[in-house]
């Protein structure tokens, strides 16, 4: 049973990856690298972990997700569409004039987007405000916040960590998409990040390190986060930037550019295992 569930989620994550590549190709711009790296995280959250109902995207009781690394909107939009919040047809309008699917997520335009994001470093503070509201109202909803590993160079993230810890937000789960690359290169070369897990631990989090492209390990980590009482959890998800498309993997130049036609065809064939149904 469990194996079947994992296989089903892997298949969904692959569908999401296909749509990420299609969206960025159609838009002739966007951020494929970090979107592909966090596809498994979003899949596990929206298809296995979160208490949500696509028919009631504004329910007060729902779990919330803040995609603090908002440039990875293709991953979030593809996940929400696959989960049934809106039609997958809409994905074709990504980044086009007057589209609901803006370059970075807009909570007032897209059902299922719990918070507008784009300017890095702000999402964890926002997630804290949500988690505090949940506690005050005794609603019991959980709040998830996905941070990029480059993003945690922003000082506000650590201001927010102190807040999560001060208020014992055990209904909060931070996920660091730790793909080790940012626009200018290796995260440890661009800025002295040092040990991410130890940083979160010293800020009062329970830190769990997993293979962030492994569905089973992710499920296990989220389950452990739910059982953690009294402190917030940070999952350090070791991922591969560009995961699933050979020439994009571990290559910082695919942070924010679209594939050309030839590259597109290759990417889709790798993800689908065939050349059919390309455009």
């Amino acid at each position, binding site marked *: 049973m469990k194996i079947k569930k994992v296989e089903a989620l892997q298949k969904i994550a692959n569908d999401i990856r296909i749509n990420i590549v299609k969206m960025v190709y159609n838009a002739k711009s966007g951020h494929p690298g970090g979107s592909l790296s966090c596809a498994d995280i979003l899949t596990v959250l929206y298809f296995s972990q979160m208490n949500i109902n696509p028919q009631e995207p504004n329910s007060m009781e729902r779990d919330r997700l803040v995609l603090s690394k908002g440039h990875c909107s293709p991953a979030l939009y593809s996940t929400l569409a696959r989960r049934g919040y809106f039609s997958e047809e809409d994905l074709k309008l990504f980044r086009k004039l007057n589209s609901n699917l803006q370059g970075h997520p807009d909570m007032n335009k897209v059902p299922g987007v719990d918070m507008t994001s784009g300017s890095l470093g702000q999402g964890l*503070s926002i997630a804290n405000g949500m988690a505090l509201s949940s506690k005050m109202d005794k609603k019991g909803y959980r709040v998830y916040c996905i941070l990029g590993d480059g993003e945690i160079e922003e000082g506000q993230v650590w201001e*927010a960590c102190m807040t999560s810890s001060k208020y014992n937000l055990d209904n909060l789960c931070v996920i660091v998409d730790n793909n080790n690359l940012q626009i200018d290169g290796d995260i440890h070369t661009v800025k002295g990040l040092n040990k991410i897990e130890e940083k979160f631990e010293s800020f009062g989090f329970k830190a769990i390190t997993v293979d962030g492209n492994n569905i089973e390990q992710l499920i296990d980590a989220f389950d452990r986060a739910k059982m953690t009482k009294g402190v917030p959890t940070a999952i350090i998800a070791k991922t591969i930037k560009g995961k699933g498309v050979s020439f994009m993997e571990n290559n910082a130049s695919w942070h924010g550019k679209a594939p050309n036609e030839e590259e597109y065809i290759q990417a889709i064939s790798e993800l689908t295992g065939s050349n059919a149904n390309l455009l």
Partner: protein
Amino acid sequence: MDDNKKIATRQSYGEILKELGKENENIVVLDADLSTATKTNIFAKEFPNRFFDMGIAEQDMMATAAGFATCGKIPFASTFAVFSAGRAYDQIRNSICYPNLNVKICATHAGVTVGEDGATHQMLEDISMMRTLPNMQVYSPSDDVQTKFIIREISKTKSPCYVRLSRLATPIIYDDNEQFELGKAKQIGDGCDATIFATGVCVAESLKAKENLEKRGIFVRVVDVYSIKPIDKETIMKCAKETKKIITVEDHSIIGGLGSSICEVLSEEYPTKVIRLGINDTFGKSGNATELMDYFNISSKAIEKLFE
């Protein structure tokens, strides 16, 4: 105007916040380690579970307030103006105004009337920065009665708001039952020799000037522009048509503040010469608040001089 009863608008803010807290349990208050100065400590004492001291982390405070607002809370976030509009500008822009979240930013210690702390703490650009943001409403009350009225009114709206409050105690201008309206200005007197458009701490100064000028046979009206955005175009145009001279006075840079706002309205609708009193493209400095108002030509003396 009662010169003997002076109160700082930050104090009025703290007092009304406590009242509102009793009436609406969705109100939460955030501060960044300045609650004794911003007067949110009055609310904190009464409602410790709805008060969040975010520490010296203004960016975190503004974005946390945004998170509260997404869940139906009515957050009031306070710190000094320079650390609100300035330090946390990007959080206000991208996480509050762009998603149009119901966050009330009540910033104290605006302008040179902060006094002795000097330039780093004297915010002179906040009206300019805040009014340029889509969805944001900007208020700059002049006395105790008006501050309480405005804070109560904005707690009922669903829009991001910026309220500019002062450290300096100023006279009570209005009767307790005076009514105001968001988006309107308050005309005081109907003299036709000049209109003095003033905001915040400069309204009391303008009224003092009005009185002194009357003794010299010069009759001016004062317009208290407490609502900077939306702005009362109708009153501005009416006064420009009815009076010989237009003067603006503000404890803020003349670039982008009240003076600019008045000029924008008039240049489009009824081109008129405007004399702007305010801080003229310079930083503030240490000194006593009253001395500084004279030094920077935003006191009653500076206004009266324009008629010599």
